[in-house]
């Protein structure tokens, strides 16, 4: 066997990373053994099928990936801070911007949003869990091990280096001979299957498991956004599945899909990638819109303005999201008619998005606004996202796009869309729903400190890129000479990036500080909020609701508080719960081994793990465990304890 292809040579940074990975792993193993937590970890977390715990694990993984992607970002910013920097070489820079993009979109934004969905959606619709709890665990572990597979690439064999869009022929075996892009095709494939299953799970959950009385048009806006998002997932992810499979066949088995000879067609990749890739943007942005809608309504003490138009604008966005993909490559020669068509559809998306912006503004109008941390992020989102949207319309004009295609202007645009449109939203949602899950709020003073650091630094880091782009600085260029004049603004952008990092450090410190010192909340409704998730206790009991709520209006919890309408009319009965299972975790491990073997063309382990996957699936099919019941007395005791009464 050729051991050389496993090695990554020559970079002190990479040796440092290897050492820190080994040390962290040893630290975790020693810690778990010393505190005798292996059993706890296995019983309570690795085998769990509880949507709340799975959601927490998604969010933890997302925070970890935020750190990893953030380190990538800092390395890029440092490398370009001044002319002719020697911090990274060109190959390493290519790997860093590729993994930064992949990790931030697929392994940070997506899991953060899916994590919030997992925790909140069943509660918002008054359900006890998602429709398929065990499948939910499968989804999580496939995502997790897919993410791990991509993350080991930079110490074993080398990371993908052809950009997160991996355009052919650059990403072909001829021009990218390292295993990096094999990791790309397999890691994304594994986590993509997990995401697709999440899509199926949540569509069924939302359509079939709502509390009695909750008609579709009475659902909270976050649940609506999640429903539409999951419909996009179910129709967009199979395209990615196919694209990645064809990529794998081209790279591992010498097929001719995207090659330059023998009838291959490199543009086919660009089209397939963006047919998935553009809807993907809306997969992360629509739930963010949902989160903002909840937060604005809660902290303005008003019901959401234009509920119906909110729903329809999301439906229109989801349809249009499938009709705009070619705007990512206007300059790649598909002719005037095609470019005009995609130009118009792209600009059309601004209309429903504008409707949503105005609805939020009208909700704020004459509201009694409280400036909490989540509300601050929401208020900052509106103007910043609008800048991103307006520059998006500029980029949508095909003829003008020839000027700024693939420049820093584009980079600035999509960071102005995705950071307020996804990252601020998940941070806002994190602060907003944190007390629901853990039973205490994050400290407001520290939260606001982090907020101001993040908002100001974000603009310092990314606004200069608009100007740099118009000056002609292209994206993905690893260095430049002093004559270009890119130096000063690039340095300013680096300073902004450092500020952003400080903001995130304060945010994480706030979690630690609040865990130790923040007072505990006992009534489960610290924000005086409107939707059903606040009607149960905090922290949430395993069964969510002792009695399934009966819904009569939108914002059912708010109406029940205002009009003193009882939400819980039925008596407590025994509650059916699904049993924990270790099989999803094992399935994830085997998928990881299979993916790793394929990356390095190790056929025998790949075949063995393929058989292993089938065996685990068969074992899951033969499993006859139909769960268990929590008896009435235990439910009553738990409820009393959560209310602070003595049992």
């Amino acid at each position: 066997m050729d051991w050389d292809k496993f090695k990554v040579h020559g970079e002190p940074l990479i040796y440092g990373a290897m050492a820190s990975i080994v040390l962290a792993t040893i630290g975790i193993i020693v810690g778990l053994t010393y505190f005798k937590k292996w059993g706890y970890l296995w019983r309570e977390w690795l085998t769990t099928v509880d949507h709340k715990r799975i959601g927490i694990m998604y969010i933890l993984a997302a925070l970890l990936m935020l750190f990893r992607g953030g380190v990538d970002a800092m390395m890029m910013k440092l490398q370009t801070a001044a002319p002719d920097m020697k911090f990274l070489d060109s190959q390493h820079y290519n790997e860093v911007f590729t993994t930064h993009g992949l990790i931030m979109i697929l392994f940070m934004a997506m899991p953060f949003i899916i994590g919030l969905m997992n925790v909140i959606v069943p509660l918002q619709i008054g359900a006890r869990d998602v429709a398929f709890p065990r499948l939910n665990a499968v989804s999580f572990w496939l995502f997790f091990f897919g993410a791990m597979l991509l993350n080991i690439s930079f110490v074993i064999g080398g990371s993908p280096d052809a950009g997160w869009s991996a355009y052919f022929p650059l990403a072909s075996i001829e021009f990218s001979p390292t295993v990096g892009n094999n990791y790309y095709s397999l890691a994304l494939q594994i986590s993509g299957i997990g995401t697709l299953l999440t899509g199926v799970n949540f569509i069924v959950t939302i359509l079939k498991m709502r509390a009695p009385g909750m008609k579709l048009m009475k659902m909270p806006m976050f649940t609506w956004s999640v429903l539409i998002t999951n419909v996009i997932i179910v129709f967009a992810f199979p395209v990615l599945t196919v694209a990645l499979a064809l990529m794998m066949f081209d790279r591992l088995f010498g097929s001719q899909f995207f090659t330059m000879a023998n009838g291959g067609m490199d543009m086919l990749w660009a089209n397939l990638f963006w047919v998935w890739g553009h809807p993907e943007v809306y997969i992360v942005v629509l739930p963010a819109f949902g989160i903002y809608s909840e937060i604005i309504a809660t902290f303005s003490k008003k019901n959401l303005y234009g509920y119906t138009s909110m729903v329809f604008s999301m439906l229109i966005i989801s349809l249009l999201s499938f009709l705009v993909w070619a705007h990512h490559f206007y300059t790649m020669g598909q002719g005037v008619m095609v470019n005009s068509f995609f130009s118009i559809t792209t600009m059309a998306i601004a209309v429903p998005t504008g409707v949503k912006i105005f609805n939020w503004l009208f909700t704020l109008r004459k509201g009694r606004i409280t400036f909490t941390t989540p509300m601050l992020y929401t208020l900052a989102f509106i103007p910043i996202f609008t800048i991103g949207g307006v520059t998006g319309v500029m980029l949508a004009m095909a003829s003008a796009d020839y000027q700024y295609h693939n420049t820093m202007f584009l980079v600035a645009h999509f960071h102005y869309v995705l950071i307020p449109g996804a990252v601020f939203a998940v941070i806002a949602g994190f602060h907003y729903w944190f007390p629901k899950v853990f039973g205490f709020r994050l400290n407001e003073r520290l939260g606001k400190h982090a907020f101001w650091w993040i908002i100001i630094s974000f603009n310092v880091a990314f606004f200069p890129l608009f100007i740099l782009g118009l000056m002609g600085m292209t994206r993905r260029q690893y260095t430049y000479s002093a004559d270009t004049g890119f130096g000063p603004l690039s340095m300013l952008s680096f300073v902004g990036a450092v500020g952003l990092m400080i903001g995130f450090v304060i945010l994480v410190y706030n979690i630690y500080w609040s865990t130790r010192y923040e007072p505990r909340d006992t009534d489960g409704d610290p924000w005086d909020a409107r939707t059903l998730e606040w009607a149960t206790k905090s922290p949430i009991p395993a069964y969510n609701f002792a009695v399934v709520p009966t819904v009569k209006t939108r914002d059912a919890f708010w109406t029940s508080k205002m009009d003193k309408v009882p939400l819980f009319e039925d008596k407590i009965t025994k509650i059916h719960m699904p049993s924990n299972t270790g099989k999803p975790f094992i399935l994830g491990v085997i998928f990881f081994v299979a993916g790793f073997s394929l990356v390095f063309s190790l056929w025998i382990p790949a075949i063995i793990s393929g058989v292993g996957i089938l065996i685990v699936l068969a074992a899951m099919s033969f499993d006859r465990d139909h769960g268990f019941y929590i008896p009435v007395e235990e439910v009553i005791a738990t409820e009393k304890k959560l209310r602070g009464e003595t049992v």
Partner: protein
Amino acid sequence: MKIDASKPLEYSTEENSNKIFGFWVFLGAEIALFATLFTVYFVMVDRFASGPSGPDLFEIGPVMIETLLLLSSSFTIGLAVHAMRHGYQKAMMVFFGLTLLMGLGFLGIEIMEFVTYVHEGATLQTSGFLSSLFVLLGTHGAHVSFGFLWGAAILIQLKRQGITPATANKSFIFSLYWHFLDVVWIFIFSFVYLKGLM
């Protein structure tokens, strides 16, 4: 577990009816998957470079047998579900087994076809056209193979447990899957083979 006697057994509990609905949603994703593969095939169909083209390669004989086998198996799985609704476990298992056997026959002929193609110098590496052909047919064939194993697992459970809400649910979902593969094959038969023979 609340069992609603007014509904067919496979729909009788909330969990069962959720599973069936979920599988329909999953089939929606499968349609998107095969639609993408067909699109790739139609893009690539004339890009055979120096290799053989469709008319050089395709023969109607084996393809007709494959079609007959798969269409008949779709009929027998329908009969199996019909028998299941009447509670005839033995008949159900016979029809179920026949379905799987015909699926196996289909796979055998498809593999022989692939071997013939490769002997005629038409491999995955030859041209864009052949890459897309092999991946489209191969994905369908992989689905049939997976279906065979899945169906066999359900058949064993039927034998052990009889017709229960759980096994009825699994069998019904399997029948949806099998019909779906049949529909995909009809598209392959029409738009890959018949069109390719013209």
